[in-house]
């Protein structure tokens, strides 16, 4: 592949940067502005002085969700080469549908197992 093949990618990146920049600029130009000072920049908390830090610790329960996400993410990665190559496999008579069905069968069974065990449910 030559550099010319990547021109659409370049256009995409420039568009993304340009759009983001344009929106920010527009909000500066057209947005309402008032005089700002320290008091006005503090977080609003029912008119009271803010108590405690802005960043708090999260419950470990979130982490379970994150771990399950990573597992499913990795399973899905295998779909990319499969989608691109399975037609040639079918044409050439190499078994492909069955093995993938087994792979994702185990995967879906695991998913159902997790749903049944309430992995997605919020523990009280």
């Amino acid at each position, binding site marked *: 592949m030559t550099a010319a093949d990547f021109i659409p990618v370049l256009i995409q990146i420039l568009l993304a940067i340009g759009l983001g920049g344009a929106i920010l600029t527009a909000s500066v130009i057209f947005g309402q502005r008032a005089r700002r000072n320290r008091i006005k920049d503090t977080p609003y908390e029912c008119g009271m002085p803010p108590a405690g830090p802005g960043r708090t610790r999260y419950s470990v329960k979130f982490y379970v969700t994150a771990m399950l996400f990573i597992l499913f993410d990795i399973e899905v*990665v295998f779909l990319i080469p499969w989608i691109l190559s399975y037609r040639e496999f079918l044409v050439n008579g190499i078994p492909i549908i069955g093995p993938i069905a087994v792979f994702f069968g185990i995967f879906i069974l695991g998913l159902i197992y997790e749903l049944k065990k309430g992995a997605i449910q919020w523990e009280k």
Partner: protein
Amino acid sequence: MDIFFILFALLTVVPAFLMVVTPNPVAGAVFLILSFIGMACLFVLLEAFFLAVLQILVYAGAIMVLFLFIIMLLDVREVEKLRPNTVTAAAAGVSLLLLVLGLIAVLAGDGLSGQLLSALPAVPDYPAADEPLGLAQKVKAYGYGLFTKYMLPFQLTGILLLIAMIGVIVLSKKRAAEEGAESAGADS
């Protein structure tokens, strides 16, 4: 392509360095994502598109989610107070020295001399029809190899992920009876 290589290499290395020196963990995580993106760009330069996609999808996506969750679970202000102790710093210095020495030794040895690297073919050689396939080719060719020759490890990966799923549930979810026992006792 040299200009792109330098650009992407900088995109990989500079955020990686910033990640190490920044005192703020969240900023460090964001720098790490930037570094991953730079690495994905390098993979694109090598025409290893599948690896580039993996890099974004798995590392910049999923792994970083875990990192950010860890950061949110920890008490960041306590972490920020930590100062590296002298022993650790000395050990890190010695490790760095050893790494550099090892690198020099390997580069100077017969394994990977400079002339050997320059002699590598510029275009990756695609396998002939009767040869087993190497792993890192284009995505489609990757699929050919993965679903024929490496079908067994592929299916085993499914089993591995199933074990991981079961493990997550076993180690994190409270069982019903356990919950009952705990709520009967003191609130945990």
